[in-house]
C-alpha cells in the first residue's frame, strides 16, 4: 500500500515539483484471539471465553451429522453421523466444551502452548454416563493465535499425544480422531502478539503493472507521432 502511495507521490511530485508526504492507514485488523489467560501484552480488550454446553438428539442409529463449537468459536468438532452410538433409554448426549488455561496443564513436548486448551466432555442423558471415545472419528478444528505446528490431545491434561495435524490456514489447524478429553495446539515459539496480515507484496506488483500501463498510455501517442514521416 505504501508503494501505491509512493508511486502516486513520485508521479505527482515530478509533475508539480513540490515535496509531498505519504499517507497510510494500515490494514483491517485480524479478529482477536479470546484467551483464558492472555499474555501480558494482549490483556487489553481480551474477552474471556466461557464453557459451552450443547445437546445432541439421538435417533435409533445414534447421533446425526452435526458440529459442536465453543462459545468463542475457537474450537469446532465436526461429527459424522453415528459418531455417538445409540444407547437404551438415552435420548440425548450432552457435550461440554471448557476452555482451559494451558499453563495449568502439563507442558507440551518440544513445543509452546498455542492459545487455550479445550476440554471436551460427553455424557448421555438422562443417565449422565460419560463417554470416553466417539464411535466414529470426528474432525477437531482449532483457531490459534499463531500458526500451529501440531495439535495434541490428552485424557488427563498431563501427558500429551501428538496428533496428525493439517494446517487449514495460519490461524486454524485441524486433526481427526475419536478421542475426547483435552486438546491443545503447539507452536514453535511462545505467543507474543498477533501479526497483521499484509498484502504489500501483491499490491506492489499491481501498482507496478498499473504504472507500466499508465506510461504506455502516455507514451504511445508520442511514439506514434515520432514514427510518422
Amino acid at each position: 500500500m505504501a508503494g501505491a502511495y509512493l508511486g502516486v507521490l513520485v508521479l505527482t511530485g515530478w509533475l508539480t515539483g513540490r515535496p509531498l508526504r505519504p499517507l497510510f492507514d494500515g490494514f483491517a485488523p485480524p479478529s482477536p484471539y479470546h484467551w483464558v489467560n492472555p499474555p501480558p501484552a494482549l490483556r487489553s480488550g481480551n474477552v474471556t471465553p466461557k464453557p459451552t454446553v450443547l445437546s445432541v438428539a439421538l435417533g435409533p442409529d445414534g447421533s446425526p451429522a452435526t458440529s459442536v463449537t465453543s462459545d468463542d468459536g475457537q474450537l469446532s468438532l465436526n461429527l459424522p453421523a453415528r459418531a455417538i452410538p445409540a444407547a437404551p433409554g438415552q435420548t440425548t448426549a450432552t457435550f461440554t466444551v471448557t476452555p482451559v488455561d494451558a499453563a495449568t496443564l502439563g507442558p507440551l513436548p518440544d513445543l509452546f502452548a498455542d492459545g487455550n486448551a479445550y476440554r471436551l466432555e460427553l455424557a448421555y442423558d438422562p443417565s449422565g454416563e460419560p463417554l470416553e471415545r466417539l464411535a466414529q472419528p470426528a474432525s477437531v478444528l482449532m483457531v490459534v493465535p499463531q500458526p500451529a505446528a501440531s495439535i495434541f490431545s490428552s485424557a488427563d491434561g498431563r501427558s500429551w499425544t501428538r496428533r496428525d495435524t493439517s494446517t487449514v490456514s495460519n490461524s486454524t489447524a485441524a486433526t481427526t480422531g475419536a478421542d475426547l478429553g483435552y486438546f491443545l495446539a503447539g507452536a514453535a515459539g511462545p505467543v507474543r502478539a498477533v501479526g497483521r496480515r499484509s498484502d504489500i507484496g501483491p499490491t506492489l506488483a499491481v501498482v507496478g503493472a498499473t504504472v507500466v500501463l499508465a506510461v504506455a498510455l502516455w507514451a504511445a501517442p508520442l511514439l506514434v507521432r515520432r514514427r510518422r514521416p
Partner: protein
Amino acid sequence: MRAVRRLVVAVGASLGISVLAAAPASAHTVASVQPTNYRSEIVAVTPARSGLRVRLLDLGRKVELRATGAGDVVVLGYQGEPYLRVGPGGVFENRRSPTLYQNRTQPGGGPAKVPATADAAAPPEWHRTSTGRTARWRDQRTRWEGPDPPSVSASPHRAQLVVPAWHLTLRDAAGDVVVTGRVLWVPGPSPWPWLAASVVVVALCAGLGRRRRWERPLAAALAALLAVSVVRTVGLEAASGKGAASVAATVVATSLVPLAGWIAGAWAVAAIHRRLENGVLAAGVVGFFLAVFALGDVLTLTRSQVQPAFTASFSRAAVSLTLGLGFGLAAASALVVRRLAAEARAGSRAGRRPPPR
C-alpha cells in the same frame, strides 16, 4: 467563455449519463460487490476429499464448488434437498428445489418468487446448466445480512465472532462432506487518510492547469487515471473467480460506460499531447465522469471487507486516486480551456489564426 460553457455542458451530460447508467440498488455497487464489515470464511471441509475444492467468492455471498472426481457431488439446499449437482456430466440444477428460486433475484432487485412446482421432498428434476466441473451459486448461509446483531451494535469497534459456525453439506457416493465456516465482524478502517489523499491529488492535479507547459503532465494524469480504472475493473472481475477470457468478456459487456470513458480518455491523451482543445475538454469530462462513478464505491474506504481488485489495499488506493485524479482533471481542464480561450481571443485581436481544436 464559449469553451467553458462547452465544458460545463459536457460535464453535465456525463453526470446525467452516469446517473442514468447506474443500476438499481443491489448487492453490487457501480463497479463491485458492496463492501461490508462482515468477514465470511471457510474453516474446514470434512472429511477431506481429493478432487473437491470449495471457496467463497464476492465476500461470502457466493460459493464456488469445483469437483473433478469420478463421481457426482450434490449440494444440499436450505431444506436438505438436492439443489445442485456437479460431476463428469457437467453442472445440473434441480428445478424442483426451492433453494434454486430462493437464491435468485428478480431483475431490479428483490428475491424471486418460489413457484408452486418447487418441492423439497419431490424427486429431483435435473437440468444441465454447464458442461464444466465448477458450480457457483449465491448462498444465504455463508453471509450475514440484515441489521447488525446486538453485540456488534454494543461494541462496533471490536472485532468479534458473529456466526460461530455455518455449514454446507455436499453429498457424494462415499457420504456427506460438511463445509464449515464462520462470520466475523471486523471494524472498518478510517476513511480520512484516503479522503485526504484524494483532496491532495485533486489540488495537485488542478494545479497542472496553471502550468505554462501543461500538455505532458495533464496527459500523464489522465493516463494514470485510465490505468487505475482499467486495472481496478479487471481486478474486480477477476476476483469473482472467472478466467481471463471470461473477465475480458464481462468487462466489455457490463462496463460499457467506463469502457466508453477509457476509449475517449485514450484519444484525449493523444489529443492533449497535440495541445488540442477538444482533447482537454474530453479529459475533463472523462475525469469527472470516472470520479462520479467512483463515488458509488466510497464504502471501499470505510469497510474492512472489500472485493479485492487483485488486493484490498489496491482497491482502496484506486478509489482514492480515481476521486482525486478525476475531479482534479476536471478542474485542470476548465483552467486550461479558459486559458486557451483567452489566448484565442488575444490571437484573433492580433490577427493570428486560431489554434486547432
